[in-house]
């Protein structure tokens, strides 16, 4: 895979900001969106390409 999302081997992103104690959701909207995505895709009557 070679495309804009493939970061493997690229240069220039600097050091890693290591965060040892990340909560599962740092912002309320993160949990909300995961919940919405899970809730509307169960039962899965379509696939991501159709979406």
């Amino acid at each position, binding site marked *: 895979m070679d495309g804009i999302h493939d970061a493997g081997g690229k240069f220039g992103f600097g050091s890693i900001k290591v*965060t040892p104690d990340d909560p*599962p959701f740092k912002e309320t909207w993160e949990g909300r969106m995961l919940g919405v995505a899970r*809730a509307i895709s169960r039962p899965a009557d379509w696939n991501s390409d159709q979406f």
Partner: protein
Amino acid sequence: MDRLQQITSIAYLCFLRPQKHRTPSSRGSFPCPGGTSVKSQSAWTLLVEKGLLDSATVDAWIEVYSDEIGPKVGAKVVARAWCDHDFRKHLLADGSAAIKEMELSGWALGDLKVVENTPVVHHLVVCTPCSCYPHGLLGIQPSWYKLESYRSRAVRDPRGVLAEFDVLLTDDVRVDVWDSTAELRYLVLPQRPVGSDHLDETPLAELVTRNSMIGTDRNLTLKPGVL
């Protein structure tokens, strides 16, 4: 309009539709006042109002990912492998099948390959295109797992990346890097802590850190890890 069409229309309306005040600094999506929080709230409200979404189901998913699914599930698998030779063999041969036998509640997992650390081999997991991760075993990814700085350098300079996590490897330890995909995820089986022979599965699981199952931690100790 069927259910899928209604949902995609709402997604377009809230997330993709060009806004009047698009800023040049926007990257990949269209901004609106309040940012992603307002967009996600709008999507959630529309989906509920149109009867496409049950808000209680959303709350239940948030609760499951906040409290139940997380690194503790993966730690149980690791502790079992340390204690049960046959399970360890099965786990390394077919990770998904072995974990299914444990009948862990609430987990969901596709194909999984388990790779075992040894005194002379260290494994590191990354997803260079995005953030593929064994959610059913480890929960939500840590922020750094999604950063370009981690994804780009894990395959180019894994020893340098590990040093940033205070994992300093000597030259006689080989590093194997595993690049995850949407179809295949990886779990590192870390080495059992020295001096833990007297412990059974439950206290052993307490010693397993999340990072040790990704490969950014190596030498587990008897001091309980923070999961």
